[in-house]
């Protein structure tokens, strides 16, 4: 999958992954995609909720080896 920026949120617990993503998205332009890797199992539901509330698009959400990978497209 293509992405413009990557954020390593491994080892961080709630609410830090969300806060880091918010900060990183602010540095990007609309339409760009951010890849996030996290280890917090709560982040799966939280990123869905985050995207629904902020208007950013959750393009992908996957899990493997105890890691959760998300692809978020910044709203235009």
């Amino acid at each position: 999958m293509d992405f413009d920026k990557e954020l390593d949120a491994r080892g961080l617990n709630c609410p830090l992954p969300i806060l880091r993503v918010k900060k990183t998205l602010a540095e990007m332009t609309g339409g760009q995609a951010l890849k996030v890797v996290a280890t917090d199992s709560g982040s799966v539901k939280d990123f869905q909720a985050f995207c629904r509330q902020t208007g950013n698009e959750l393009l992908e959400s996957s899990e493997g080896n105890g890691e959760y990978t998300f692809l978020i497209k910044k709203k235009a």
Partner: protein
Amino acid sequence: MAKKLAIIASKGTLDWAYPPFILASTAAALDYEVQIFFTFYGLTLLKKELDAKISPLGNPAMPMPVPMPNLVQMLPGMESMATMMMKQKMKDKGVASLEELRSLCQEADVKVIACQMTVDLFDFKKEDFIDGIEFGGAATFFEFASEADVSLFI
């Protein structure tokens, strides 16, 4: 228009200090306009040097590595030890420190009101508090809270 979150933070122990800062920083990330009114013991969370402690005493729900009767929990040093152990556990699990969450709130423009009555009551000095806060009373809180979508008392 942005949604609004109003919080009253009235407690100053380590465990009770987390919810206001976690919820405020997260709401800010969700584009809420956030205001926290710090009152009574919650006011100590605005001191430059954070010194929030946790006590197992009178807190029977606190998970302990070994069961410990109240009589042991009241021994000198137990509170410091419990606080140290809790902080270490939080660090190991990737939970942010209070200092970090507090500065994230400030970066996100969470508005902080310190209760003037409490400042007077406990003879707190304004120079002991972090910068960028305002002082006010109950009426100040209601001005914002009356228009808030979510209001929490913690």
